[in-house]
């Protein structure tokens, strides 16, 4: 469930932080951000926090005026299976509707589903951490301390894997830097 990017975007759709864990060039980034942000901003409170976009599953959450978006590898799960079946013109389900075309279930389809709820918790942790550091964090804090936000993320996520989930551990080196 590798995290592929973390974005923070305000209500107007302006990016306030962008951290990618795989290299995309500027055009790709701009296009991706534009599309995803448009998709997420169009959704309302009653809708779920997951959006599928290209090969990403985007988990987002809104805090005050800021949207936190995390893109995770989407192993395309069932839809890949549907696609596969459609391409081959095969039934996904057998006649009586019970049972499945097992030969088609590719291990990749099954494995590696991101845990969306864990990602939501990660977003919450990130916000709490920033809150603890900045004290009632707001958009401006992130704007003017972008590098700090990046360092916090760096402490929490490496290579798309979450490595640290303790707030004090995350903040320790940053507080040291502040003192220095």
């Amino acid at each position: 469930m590798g995290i592929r990017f973390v974005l923070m975007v305000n209500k107007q759709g302006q990016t306030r932080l962008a951290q990618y864990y795989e290299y995309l060039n500027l055009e790709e980034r701009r296009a991706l951000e534009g599309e995803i942000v448009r998709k997420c901003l169009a959704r309302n409170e009653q809708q779920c926090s997951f959006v599928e976009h290209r090969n990403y599953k985007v988990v987002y959450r809104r805090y005050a005026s800021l949207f936190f978006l995390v893109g995770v590898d989407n192993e395309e799960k069932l839809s890949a299976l549907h696609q596969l079946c459609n391409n081959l013109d095969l039934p996904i389900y057998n006649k009586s509707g019970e049972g499945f075309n097992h030969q088609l279930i590719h291990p990749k389809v099954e494995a590696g589903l991101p845990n969306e709820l864990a990602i939501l918790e990660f977003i919450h942790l990130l916000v709490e951490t920033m809150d603890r550091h900045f004290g009632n964090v707001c958009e401006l804090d992130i704007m003017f301390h972008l590098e700090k936000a990046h360092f916090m993320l760096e402490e929490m996520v490496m290579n798309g894997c979450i490595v640290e989930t303790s707030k004090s551990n995350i903040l320790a080196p940053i507080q040291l830097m502040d003192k220095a």
Partner: protein
Amino acid sequence: MAGPSLMDSLFQRSVDDIIKGIRLSPPGTESTFIAKSLDEIRREIKSTDPQTKATALHKLTYLHSLHGADMSWAAFHSVELSSSSAHSHKRIAFLAASLSFNPSTTEVILLLTHQLRKDLSSSNVHEVSLALSTLSSICNPDLARDLTPELFTLLSSSKIFVRKKAIAAVLRVFEQYPDAVLVCFKRVVENLENGDMGVLSAVVGLFCELTEKDPKSYLPLAPEFYKILVDCRNNWVLIKVIKIFAKLAPLEPRLGKRVVEPICEHMGRTGAKSLAFECVRTIVTSLSDHDSAVKLAVGKLREFLLDDDPNLKYLGLQALAIVARTNMWAVLENKELVVKALSDVDVNIKLEALRLVMCMVSEDNIMEICRILISHALKSDPEFCNEILDFILLTCGRNFYEVIFDFDWYVSFLGEMARIPHCQKGSEIESQLVDIGMRVKDARLQLVHVARDLVIDPALLGNPFIHGVLAAAAWVSGEYIELSRNPFEIMEALLQPRTSLLTPSVRAVYIQSAFKVIIFCLNSYLKLNGDDPSYPSESTYSDVKSDYPGRFETVASQLLSDTEPDNPNMVVKHGQKPSVSSKMHHLTLESLVALVNLVETNLGPLAGSNEVEVQERASNVLGLIKLIKPKLLGCLDTREGDKANGELKASEMVELIFGAFSEDLGPVSLNAQERVPVPDGLVLKENLRDLEEICGDIELPLSTSFSLVKLQTMDATSNLEHHSKEEFEPSTESTSLLAEHRKRHGLYYLPAENAGIISNDYPPAHDPKDKASDETEDLVKLTEQSLVIKKKPNQAKSRPVVVKLDDGEGFKVAAKAPEFKADLISGAVQEVLLGNEATTSSSRRKSSKKSSKRREMDESNVGVPESKNEIVKADMPEIGFSSSGRRKHHGHGKERKHRSSGKDKVHDHKDKQKSEHGHGKHKSRQRADGALAAQSPVIPDFLL
């Protein structure tokens, strides 16, 4: 402006200034402000003062990251600054590097190697951590190779803070430089027993990623993972460990038995939804043979579905879709919740629900489900409405309509769908209508009714989305006109003025159908009056239509007797129609003449149409009318003697065309064309320039194989023209020239199947009869795949026969599927195994587009442990048996040994690979190889 002046340094703007500046600049002028700032930065960054340089780089990073400014030009400055002694400068430099460097194209990365090495071995943990973060984001194969030793040291660093980061960074290094696995793997594994949550989290995360790519290789580590699963209380770690087991369990049934219990325990105990969900998903994907666990999981899912949180609802539905594959009852049990979710506010949830509803479909409930869905479709927004229609069409049409029992219902249902206001699925409905027409004989009567209703409704013509449906309806009306109750009415509908709204291709279908209708009417008339002994046709076409014995009689006599207009409400705008329509029910000479006149007036203008298809078809019909009409009129005017004579000629023509049209069209296999063997002497691949030469008068001897075959143009649609022209007109000069040419150079034309082929514009079709009667050998082969038409007595409830081409459609797919699968799963692996060296080394050298390259690297990485596993797997069965007896006696102690032997084997293989790389370390290892090879049959009895 040479270098930065002192003034620049003194009055340099800070990052905050830039941010404020952007915020203050009036809308629309940000880009000018940014451009101005970039100019300043370009100047400042050259400064020798590290502070000035750092600030400039910091500003640039900000603009790059949030405003998309290009900073590839500043790569070297980042490298330069990274060697600064001030930690704050170094931070800025490394941040800039990790945010902007492209690992595969930024060349200056190599210049960072030394600095990174220095920092990795620094005594300051913060420097080390910074270097590790940077390494993990900009790592390329060279960097990975050069820094592996430092990383190896850090993996057992006493400082937790550093060690966990080293573990996280190692994943990237493995991906870039698979040989690093040899060096580091053991140390990584040791960390699985570390008590620190940070370290454990990192190492479990690492294995989670690794197992995702190639689970088999990590089976020997199952005991360690199991221990974490049982002992750990950190939800993050647990989620990842469970994910690992989700991948390992399907590979080893005994493992599944072992882990199912603790997973269920976690699921029951935890308050964290994320962990509970992970447990549920693992059970339903990987442990679905454990019924009691699945029951528990489905119970949990139901809680999710009942929850108000849309996130849980969405995930619950998703998981339910996974359960549906193996345990359909779970979906049926939650049916009402799923149906309720169809009207959720969130389209994502609705889609998931729709998917689930469709997987509940069976023969018994299809009608009910479709009814529910259509009522939802009518209520929904256009987008979702079409989504629903799409799913319905897909499900119903799947595998030759296998879920459809009542085709009369389905055909009417298709017509209903076409009339849904938002419907944009015209083309799919179109193809199904035609397809059912060809495949399901028993549905044709109803199909014709549905088609009539569609064709006759002038309101539908205005909706471009369903033009496809109309085309299908028109085709059906024409093709199966003998089943229609009132051909005249159909004709009027086909010619109604609003057809001008149709696209040319659809219009061509309309005209073609009108052609068929008129032929049918003429023929019926002639046949009815054909007591005349000279009338030859009777036997010919009643043979052809043997599937409908007596059907035309019925229809035709009905035409005569049916005095009531079938559809008095029909809206007809055309001037002469109303009068015509009422009279037309009597199939008399007068009514025929009126019909012909109607066609002529309506199609007349189209003969000059700009659209080739329309023009051509209109001309065909008009050509026929031109020939027929004088005869008909002649009959009308003159008395007995001439009448018979005129009628005779006309009847011959009509009968011929009718014969051509009346052959039944069947479905065509997609690969029918491929199966036609290329006859000897037919050159397909040669350059056609030769043709010019040939045309320049060299006469080729006629090859005998072609002289027997009647030749035809390649263009199927133009067939008709030749047909009718050749039959009705004295061949004009051009056609005769063409024929001549064809005769001489048959080589360059496709051999015709037979003259009897149906010239039809609509779906290309092979006719069973046609094929069967054909003498040529290649076509006999085609016949062998022919249609399975079994006539069934039309009983009330039996399912109509759906014609399938057995090898043509079903089997082709079935044969293809495993191939496809094999391709996906093992293709990559095999390729890697065989061409491992090639890919790895070549991709290491070349630094080209990153993403694709990286993937390649991933695969090569995966391939390495994979091969080792071949051994494990091969040994598995016997060991499984032999050790089963000992199982009880050898407890935990054995696992240790097995695991390590497994691990060592990783090394083995790596060694082999490495030795091929010529690293020269292999001698000592090879000895170890021998020792281990002897041990290798002792194989993990994993947890037991």
